[in-house]
């Protein structure tokens, strides 16, 4: 299994991301390993139009990104101030993370083109993204550039790493 892309935010089109192979692993931190042509992919960058938004205040914001090839479910956690996961960390840092997540949540609106980075996760058998960064893209050509980036990277980089250039 090739691990060279493991710490990279791989730019993937939704149909490509949604067709990653899922394999259960023994790690409690990452219970599922996601692979593309025998290459481990754990983080991704996607871009598309927000088509749904479901807010659970102080818990999470779940939203959908449609890039024209598929719909990806994304989850932005908003529970940093109450979750035991953050209880041993520096409270000032946790506050910063919580403020940033709250700011991202305000930016995510239906109809807006957004670039999202995050960790690939599985939920009930489906791929979803646990969000770490959100940037609203106001360039009307951003989606076309993103498609071209994804195609170029798949052909010249991701497929080559996998030893299967197309």
């Amino acid at each position: 299994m090739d691990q060279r892309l493991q710490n990279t935010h791989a730019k993937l089109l939704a149909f490509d991301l949604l067709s990653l192979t899922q394999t259960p692993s023994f790690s409690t931190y990452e219970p599922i390993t996601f692979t593309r042509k025998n290459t481990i992919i754990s983080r991704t960058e996607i871009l598309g139009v927000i088509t749904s938004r479901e807010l659970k205040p102080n818990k999470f914001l779940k939203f959908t990104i449609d890039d024209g090839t598929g719909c990806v479910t994304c989850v932005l956690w908003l529970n940093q101030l109450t979750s035991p996961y953050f209880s041993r960390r520096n409270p000032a840092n946790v506050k910063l993370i919580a403020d940033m997540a709250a700011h991202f949540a305000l930016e995510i609106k239906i109809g807006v083109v957004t670039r999202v980075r995050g960790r690939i996760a599985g939920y009930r058998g489906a791929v979803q993204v646990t969000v770490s960064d959100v940037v609203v893209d106001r360039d009307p050509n951003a989606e076309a550039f993103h498609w071209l980036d994804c195609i170029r990277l798949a052909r010249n980089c991701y497929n080559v790493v996998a030893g299967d250039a197309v």
Partner: protein
Amino acid sequence: MAAMAIKHGELVTLEELNPSSPFFKQGASVRVTGKLQEYIVETAIAVAADGNATLKIDTQHLRDISFRIGSTYQFIGELLIQPDNEAILQARVGRIVDGIDLSLYHQSLQLLRQFQADHLNNSTS
């Protein structure tokens, strides 16, 4: 956090939305781009145009969007094909894309379709 079944809007050009097209199906989820040619406030029906092709868009479910004749818009929604074979897009998402390079968009769309077809062929072979 049950998964919602929201279909993606298949990227199509207005010229491709004719009755003989594979995209021209009742309930098909599509994403179209065109210049606003007409907008009737009372019915919230807009007409988008790209070249010689036009499409009626039902915008009644859209919020936080203003309609300006001559501006370019992108809509995602489901096709409603009427008995006379005229299609209306029931838009659920809409945005202004003034400044979009339609030539770049159309060329990129062709490359994207080719890439998807290659990917599908490689994964099935």
